[in-house]
């Protein structure tokens, strides 16, 4: 655990942790899901679990874009990029995510033209700089990144750039939360809502969780104090037997979201009837596809997509970990065959993946303590 005095306002952190202990009924076990992978990373990095009483269990949610992408989509994208004169462009997070025949990085080593971009607009620029090639942008992400992809497509159309397309893998967070709540093996008491997704969608889309499912939600920032305050918010609601949406991250998240971003998404995207998520299976209306009015820039309409369906390596239990049914270290491959250096599942690749977060902070810590306690 990090020392509390390394945090800003350590006395406030200590007071908030005490408040959590006061609010938690010792006769009750609380299961609170943090939806966003950024929160999962922060919780492990800051050792926040150690500040919580043992009857508060944090369950890691599906909000890690590379983690929920099924391997078949990576294979599909790489298959298209095998074609002549195609450049495969993606964010750095995608580069080490394993496909059946290896990651994009491994394909690059075998000669594929693979480029890291830090912005979808740079993928468009790459197309303009390479007029004799086709640039395919492998788009992933929730509502945080989807508006930027949408604006990029609007620019491609306006500028008449025809050697550019988007392989759209954007997903939406609300149907994933619904699927988790519908899952029979999952019992949750409350949610820590995602911070940056909510800057786009606002707080309203979570209201059904309170009104229909009777579960509190606190939309949270990423500092240690933010997360602890959000836990206080949901515990207070649980104690008062209330369920409502609270916005702990008001300094960044407007209740109504970002209108310009939502309009860009509506202009370019429509809901797919269904989409496959790793671990959660097919979820209806849970992902975005490109509207017909942008068909020319839609990889799936311009190219023959193999439509590969691949099951995850049998021994890997990514699905159970993603659903929160298993903790990362309970997977048979964790820290054995599957490590951040040699990831078998995507949850070990991204810093937002719960397996990588658990490995980097909890596992290394335990391994160090064990090696000190039991010298060889």
């Amino acid at each position, binding site marked *: 655990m990090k020392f509390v005095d390394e945090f800003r306002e350590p006395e406030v952190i200590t007071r908030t942790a005490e408040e959590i202990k006061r609010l938690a009924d010792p006769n009750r076990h609380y299961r609170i899901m943090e939806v966003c992978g950024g929160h999962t990373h922060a919780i492990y990095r800051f050792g926040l679990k150690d500040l919580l009483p043992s009857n508060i269990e944090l369950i890691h949610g599906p909000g890690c874009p590379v983690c929920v992408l099924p391997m078949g989509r990576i294979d599909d994208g790489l298959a298209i990029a095998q074609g002549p004169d195609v450049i495969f462009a993606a964010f750095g997070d995608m580069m080490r995510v394993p496909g059946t025949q290896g990651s994009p990085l491994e394909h690059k080593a075998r000669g594929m033209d693979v480029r890291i971009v830090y912005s979808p607009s740079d993928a468009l620029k790459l197309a303009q700089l390479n007029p004799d090639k086709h640039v395919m942008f492998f788009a992933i992400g929730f509502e945080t990144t989807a508006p930027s992809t949408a604006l990029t497509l609007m620019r491609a159309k306006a500028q008449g750039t025809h050697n550019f397309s988007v392989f759209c893998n954007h997903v939406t967070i609300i149907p994933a939360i619904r699927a988790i709540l519908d899952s029979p093996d999952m019992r949750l008491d409350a949610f820590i809502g995602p911070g940056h997704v909510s800057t786009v969608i606002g707080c309203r889309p979570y209201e059904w969780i309170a009104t229909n499912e009777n579960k509190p939600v606190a939309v949270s920032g990423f500092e240690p104090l933010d997360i602890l305050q959000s836990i206080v918010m949901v515990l207070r609601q649980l104690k008062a037997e209330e369920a409502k949406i609270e916005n702990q991250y008001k300094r960044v998240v407007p209740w109504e979201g*970002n209108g310009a971003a939502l309009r860009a998404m509506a202009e370019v995207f429509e809901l797919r009837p269904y989409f496959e998520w790793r671990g959660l299976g097919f979820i209806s209306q849970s992902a975005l596809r490109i509207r017909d009015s942008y068909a020319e820039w839609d990889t799936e309409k311009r190219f023959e997509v193999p439509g590969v369906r691949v099951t995850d390596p049998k021994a890997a239990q990514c699905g159970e970990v993603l659903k929160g049914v298993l903790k990362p270290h309970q997977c048979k491959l964790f820290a054995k065959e599957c490590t951040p250096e040699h990831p078998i599942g995507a949850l070990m690749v991204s810093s937002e993946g719960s397996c990588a977060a658990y490995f980097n902070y909890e596992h290394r810590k335990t391994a160090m303590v064990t090696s000190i306690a039991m010298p060889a």
Partner: protein
Amino acid sequence: MCLAIPGQIVELYPDQPSAAMVDVVGVRRKVDLGLLQDNLPVKGDWVLIHVGFAMSKISEEDAIDQMRTLRMLGEAEAAMQEVEGYGLENVENPKPA
């Protein structure tokens, strides 16, 4: 990818209404303002940047807090690498993927 990087608007372009030069801890890059059309920032304002697009206006205090959070999360280096990567400055000599 889900990093939110704080930056200050240091230059606007009358001929490119949806572009701005931002300063992120001394590194200057162009970002897109298209997602802030309803509430355009002015020179001196602070914004949170995702994948090259300014997504929200924030206070200077929150910008400083956000940079500190990135440092505490061990993500400051990745954030700077991302900002330096905007605009394909390295296209002629792309960084190894």
